[in-house]
């Protein structure tokens, strides 16, 4: 009789686990499919591929253009993330420390980033900056700027959550009384405490940005070929090959995320 509630607990526990497992299974299906496709010689209208091979990867990783594009993408994404960090972190701090009322407006501003699809704003950007006083189109700089707007919502939200959980006012006051200037207190106290959320947001943004195509193709194209522009330009070659590209950068993000979570522990 006393065991009955015990069993109850186990069933709820089991329920929660099964929900999570089902979720994982469903979500992983497309990823596995891509992986399998990239590893198969040929996979036509059949349930399973005909034969497996590593050729696509070998071919891919020997392609200098791919490596170059990969390098470009990484450089671009890294640059963007650095810019984001340097600009958004102080901004979020200033908002929360000096002008808490601004947060509401920031949230609206952030939502607006979703409102104009890249296909459209790229046309506007093309018209505005192709020529004229700031001819950025065709240079990676314009992409850095656009990527900034893409990453902004994720990073700002993460920082806002972190700062909300932190008693910024008291911590800053305490640091001031202990002789720290505002910048010093920010660097020594606030920054380390929002680092975790920031890192998570940066990695999320990284995977988003690595997959970005519209801006890259419209604004810069081959002048600074990125991974997805490359993917697009070789899309006619083979689905297996493009799957290999996708899996390559997928595994790359997975690896980097894992590494980061390892290191930050």
């Amino acid at each position, binding site marked *: 009789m006393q065991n009955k509630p015990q069993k109850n607990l186990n069933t709820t526990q089991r329920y929660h686990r099964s929900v999570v497992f089902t979720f994982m299974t469903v979500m992983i299906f497309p990823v596995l499919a891509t992986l399998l496709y990239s590893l198969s010689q040929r*996979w*036509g*209208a*059949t349930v399973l591929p005909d034969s497996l091979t590593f050729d696509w990867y070998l071919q891919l990783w020997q392609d200098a253009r791919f490596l170059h594009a990969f390098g470009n993408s990484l450089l671009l994404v890294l640059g963007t993330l650095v810019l984001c960090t340097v600009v958004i972190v102080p901004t979020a701090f200033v908002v929360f420390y000096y002008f808490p009322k601004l947060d509401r407006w920031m949230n609206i501003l952030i939502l607006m980033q979703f409102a104009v699809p890249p296909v459209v704003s790229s*046309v506007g950007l*093309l018209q505005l900056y192709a020529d004229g006083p700031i001819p950025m189109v065709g240079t990676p700089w314009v992409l850095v700027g656009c990527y900034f707007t893409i990453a902004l919502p994720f990073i700002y939200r993460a920082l806002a959550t972190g700062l909300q959980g932190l008693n910024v006012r008291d911590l800053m006051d305490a640091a001031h009384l202990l002789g720290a200037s505002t910048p010093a207190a920010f660097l020594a106290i606030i920054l380390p405490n929002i680092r975790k959320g920031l890192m998570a947001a940066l990695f999320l943004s990284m995977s988003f940005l690595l997959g970005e195509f519209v801006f890259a193709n419209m604004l810069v194209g081959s002048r600074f070929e990125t991974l997805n*522009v490359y993917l697009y*330009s070789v899309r*006619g070659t083979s689905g297996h090959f493009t799957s290999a590209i996708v899996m390559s950068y997928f595994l790359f993000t997975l690896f980097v995320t894992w590494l980061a979570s390892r290191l930050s522990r």
Partner: protein
Amino acid sequence: QDMTTLIAAAKKEGTVNSLGMPNDWANWKDTWAQITQKYGITHMDNDMSSAQEVAKFEAEKTNASGDIGDVGQAFGPIAKKKGLTLAYKPTTWKDIPAWAKDEEGHWAVAYTGTMAFISNNKLVKNPPKNWDDLLKGTYKVSVGEVGVAAQANSALLAVAIAKGGSEKNLEPAYKFFAELAKQGRLANIDPTTALLEKGEVEVGLMWDFNALGKRAIIDQKMFTVSIPLDGSVSAGYATIINKFAKNPNAAKLTREYIFSDAGQINLARGYARPIRSNVVLPQDAKDKMLPVAEYKNAKPIEDFAAWEATTKTIARQWQEQVMVYKK
């Protein structure tokens, strides 16, 4: 006359950037390789649609990133009207039929394609030979981006021509596809290489050079390519040189090369039909082509003005007359 000066100037520029001329389209690959090898001019391509190319020329003005582009024939006059093109007549100019070139040299069609069927042999027992076969089959038909892509629009025109319509009148085509849609056999997908390879496309409609090219990449035995015998349409692709090109001479030289014998043979090897009929094709290039007999009912687009007007309505008509029947 000034070929030597042109070559010298082009070599000095040392590079040429193209828009919408990727390696896997009509065998541009060989042309680029040969230009690089012969003149030491390096090349980069940025693949995009015709409209994007024109838009990019227009937007970038003097900060031009593309020197030369390859657009559907209809876009040649548009680009010229917008004042975005640089005129250049290659030495082989007189060999190009009048319908395929701008008299001032702002654009010139280098090759043509004809609407064709591509059928997956495994999924389709009796590959269609003419449009009526499509209606009788049990397979799904993929047309591509109707209303957006010139290729898909041309498929509609091909049906219309076969069924008694014209550039002005696509009604027969809409009826035809509506019938397919009612049967639940109109697939909403674009017949790309990857989808052909995956076996998602049972029968696709596309330019012959595209169909043959994709078949060659994927698997020669997997597909059957044929021109609809009861009527099809041919259309050309024209090169335009950017008026603001950073490398105008290299671009001119590129056009020169494309219209040279070697360039035209390259296109033929890419399954495209070269515009110059006086080029002697090597046997391997000839072998790649479909039998000439299949082309007997294929007609070129004649009334460009009407066709341009019609294309603007296609997207809407397609949704209203065809997609409504889709199950």
